[in-house]
């Protein structure tokens, strides 16, 4: 699989993998960029080009994960991207999935599909709690840590001393399990009373969402957490 580089045209990026559309949106890039290259768009919109390239390449190519390179970026940059992704999940992806699920349930006579809706709601509740926790606790802590590092504070504020990333570090696997199961059960065990088109659309959305959130979890687990651990070591233990 090819890697995108700074002279790759934005249009070729999208033609290569249209699933990158929401990803570039998170950087504020919208369609209508003509023949501009990644380098040109990033310069124009004041986007960190190396970070953008690392993110799109990691998303596009599942085997490619430049962990060390990504950990070198500032925590602010990483957290900002993660926050925008959360927003995308909660405001676009999940509502779309729910809309399709409602349509399926409405058009079916059996109770079975209501079961899937209950299951989905459980998953959503878990995910929303997890995201809220990150935005209200983990991310502010990380940004505070970053500020302390930049200002080279001699004494750290109490908020930082009280916690460590381990207080917040949550395993992503449990939340992801339910999503995987929902997909599996729909594919393997759905009874004949359903609408083909509706269910296919629903599964398309689930697959795309799963791809997105797996990539997201990878960034949190393999980039943010280790990076913060290093920051903590430097700041708290000299």
């Amino acid at each position, binding site marked *: 699989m090819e890697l995108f580089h700074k002279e790759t045209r934005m249009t070729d990026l999208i033609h290569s993998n249209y699933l990158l559309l929401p990803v570039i949106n998170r950087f504020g890039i919208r369609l209508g960029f003509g023949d501009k290259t990644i380098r040109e768009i990033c310069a124009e919109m004041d986007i960190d080009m190396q970070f953008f390239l690392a993110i799109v390449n990691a998303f596009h190519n599942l085997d490619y994960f430049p962990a060390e390179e990504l950990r070198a970026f500032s925590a602010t940059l990483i957290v900002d991207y993660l926050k925008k992704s959360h927003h995308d999940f909660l405001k676009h992806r999940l509502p779309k999935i729910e809309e399709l699920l409602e349509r399926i349930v409405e058009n079916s006579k059996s109770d079975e599909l209501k079961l899937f809706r209950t299951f989905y709601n459980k998953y959503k509740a878990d995910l929303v709690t997890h995201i809220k926790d990150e935005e209200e606790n983990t991310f502010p802590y990380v940004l505070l840590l970053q500020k302390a590092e930049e200002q080279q504070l001699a004494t750290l504020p109490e908020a930082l001393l009280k916690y460590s990333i381990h207080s917040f570090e949550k395993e992503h696997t449990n939340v992801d399990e339910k999503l995987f*199961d929902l997909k599996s059960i729909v594919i393997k065990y759905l009874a004949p009373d359903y609408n083909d088109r509706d269910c296919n659309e629903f599964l398309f959305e689930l697959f795309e969402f799963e791809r997105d959130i797996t990539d997201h979890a990878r960034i949190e687990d393999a980039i943010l957490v280790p990076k913060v651990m290093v920051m903590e070591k430097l700041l708290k233990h000299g």
Partner: protein
Amino acid sequence: MDRRFIIVHPSYIIRQGLISLMRQERTIDIIEVAGCDDLSNYSSMQKKNILFVVDSALDESEIEASVLSFRTSNLVKVMYLSGSVCKTDRPEKGNGYLYLDSSKEQLCEKLFEQPWSLTKITEKETISQPMLTDREKDVLTHVAMGKSNKEMADELSISIHTVISHRKNITEKLGIKSISGLTVYAILNKLIDTHNIDLESLI
């Protein structure tokens, strides 16, 4: 069988040539890097059969050091690309040699006919899983009702170890990991009587 070819060679032309050859024969995922340093960007790969095609001018111990991280979660073979077939005996290196002056047929034979030993991973993928045993159905029903491992062990008169064993087998056979998912499966397959139960609290 999930295969990857990883080309490690400083020459752009040689990398492109190898890619072109590989693509003509099969549609496979190919990764190309100029040197060992770039390999770390791919070391998160898992459960793949990987064939490294490496410049023979590179030091074997340096290659092995870079390839080592791939060996923990993947099946790995390493072949060395050399200029021409030596008339004299060459010491065995890695999983053998490829030669630039070989014919297309010879190259393809070496690249694609490499036997990969059957591993646990590939075996699992090809055998279709049998249905749940009666005992497994019992355990599944209890899991779906929200029982703990200890409670299940007591009610079914088996050890906790056996309960865990059954749960593992169930997950493997059904491909369902979460308790909620197992509950849904149990309800769909009428293993639980749902008449008097509030679904919301169960799942």
